[in-house]
């Protein structure tokens, strides 16, 4: 049984213009220990795929036309809201793009971490190192301890005091570390990271990628990393799926897809990235390459 198995996922969204078919039969299987990169340009539907796994697309406007998202054998599109809520945070962690807007500015980071830890701990006390049936006080104390430990783990020094700071007292890179701590505190089996380094400087990006990579290694979890940056995919991912207009054009191990791309779109994307050895005038845009797919 795969960790995550997306089969023929079809999503439509309603807007002013009426209902638009956005995802056209996405198929994707993620096993533990795999880091799947999902690359695509603006509007390719990669973020909506990620949100679908956490079932965070409200309906309306979203509507699933067909398909299933099986997480450890259970179809996420068919579980109850309550079951889904337990899965989130405890079994599926999520990180978003902008660390400045994804932490609640009015609360100490400790409060936010502890609440997530408590949520995961109530679902499964072993996350906090407790036996089943632990008291509320035990849970709270353990959640606080685990929050500090997790902050240390993501590389925040003096975690025991910094846990009482507010988000605005941290730099962008540090905030993203805090968000990673929040996503990982429930010991999830699957991590969905939606453009986790896009808003960061390259030097910080490298550190955050290293952190995600190491956490994944250590805990042997599956990752769905959504990004537009082929460089990031090449660095950290074991597998990659190339998306274009709601379809996966090509998927497979990074070494195969990026070194020997089978689809012309992938090749074009690779040609559009300026690297150390691109000569001036050699870059190619996508002009005229891809036919306008009927939406």
């Amino acid at each position, binding site marked *: 049984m795969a960790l995550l198995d997306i089969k023929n996922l079809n999503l439509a969204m309603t807007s002013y213009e009426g209902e638009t078919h956005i995802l056209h039969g996405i198929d994707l299987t993620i096993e533990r220990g795999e880091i799947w990169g999902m690359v695509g340009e603006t509007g390719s539907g990669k973020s909506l795929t990620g949100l679908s796994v956490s079932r965070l697309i409200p309906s309306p406007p979203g509507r699933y036309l067909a398909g299933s998202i099986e997480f450890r054998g259970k179809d996420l599109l068919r579980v109850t809201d309550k079951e889904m809520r337990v899965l989130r945070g405890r079994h599926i962690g999520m990180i978003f793009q902008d660390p400045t807007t994804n932490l609640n500015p009015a*609360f100490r980071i400790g409060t936010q971490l502890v609440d997530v830890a408590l949520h995961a701990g109530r679902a499964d006390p072993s996350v906090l190192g407790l036996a089943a049936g632990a008291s509320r006080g035990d849970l709270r104390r353990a959640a606080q301890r685990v929050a500090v430990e997790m902050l240390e783990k993501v590389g925040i020094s003096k975690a025991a005091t910094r846990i009482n700071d507010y988000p605005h007292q941290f730099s962008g890179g540090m905030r993203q570390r805090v968000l990673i701590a*929040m996503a990982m505190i429930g010991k999830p089996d699957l991590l969905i990271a939606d453009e986790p380094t896009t808003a960061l400087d390259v030097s910080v990006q490298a550190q955050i990628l290293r952190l995600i990579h190491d956490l994944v290694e250590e805990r042997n979890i599956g990752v769905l990393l959504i990004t537009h940056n082929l460089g990031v995919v090449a660095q950290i991912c074991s597998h990659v799926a190339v998306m274009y207009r709601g379809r996966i054009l090509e998927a497979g191990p990074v070494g195969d897809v990026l070194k020997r791309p089978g689809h012309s779109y992938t090749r074009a994307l690779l040609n559009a990235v300026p690297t150390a050895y691109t000569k001036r005038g050699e870059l190619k845009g996508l002009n005229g390459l891809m036919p306008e797919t009927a939406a």
Partner: protein
Amino acid sequence: MLLYILRRLVLLVPVLLGLTLLLFIVARILPGDPVGLAAGPNATPELIEQMRRELGMGLPLPVQYWNYLTGLVSGDWGMSIFTRRPVFADIMEYLPATVELVFAALFIAVSIGIPLGLLTAVNRNGVLDYATRTAALGGIAMPRFFLGILLQMMFAAWLDILPLSGRFPLIESPPDHVTGLYTIDALIAGDWLAFRIALSHLALPAIAMALSPLATIMRMMRASTIEVLQQDYVMTERALGLSNRLILFKYVLKNAMTSTLTVIGLYVSWLLGGTVLVETVFDWPGLGLYATQAILTQDFMPVIGVTLVIAVIYLITMLAVDLLYGVFNPKVRHA
């Protein structure tokens, strides 16, 4: 924190100086003959001249202003030509009634408006939402004085369950003076009957004043809650499995309060100004009634005095709002 408050209080001094100067200039520049009005139609020119001298109105303006300023500090706020009493004494007598009325109204508006706003934001476009939003539009448009009259008609004249006007029946003795707010004083004295009487008199004018701010606060709270619900961090909180109740009442509420708070602060000034209308309708013996009388007789010392008191209350409220703002928004917290 304490230092910050102190500094803010010190900064109020130039504001108040500017305010007195402004009021003084306005009062002196404006046409009108308050002395002539007060002396009556039969007064001789000599009598009027003598009154003017006694009131110090013949002196050069800067001297008059200086005299007024020094007087202000020592508690001499001038004489009311109409009541023939010191303005300061008058204001101290009427102030508690107004404070009681304004804060009762504010309490009603906040304690109903905020939960209602939160509730309608969550059940957006539901039946409750449409009903309250439509009602709120009506509430904002309803003139306070007309609402007052309607309430009197309804509850005092037809249903006869609440008194028509006044603050306390003349034949009864009000509770011992501690704060001057009858409801509070009655509670302090443990006098339940007096509390009920005071409350029954307070109810209608407070409701008449509260409706519009209630509607505005509700709308503001609804709008800011909806805005907060769309923030990225709410998505993160949801994505990590926190319950809707926890997200709404803990994480969203605190953020949504910040913008609503400013509106609440602004309404204190609006309520204080509105007392001239509502106190007139309900014969409520407060600053508004006093100011209205003074304005109609062009008796300017009381008008300046009342305006000054209201401005001070407003400035202190805004300071309190700023401090509270820091509680809700740690980014602007003051060292």
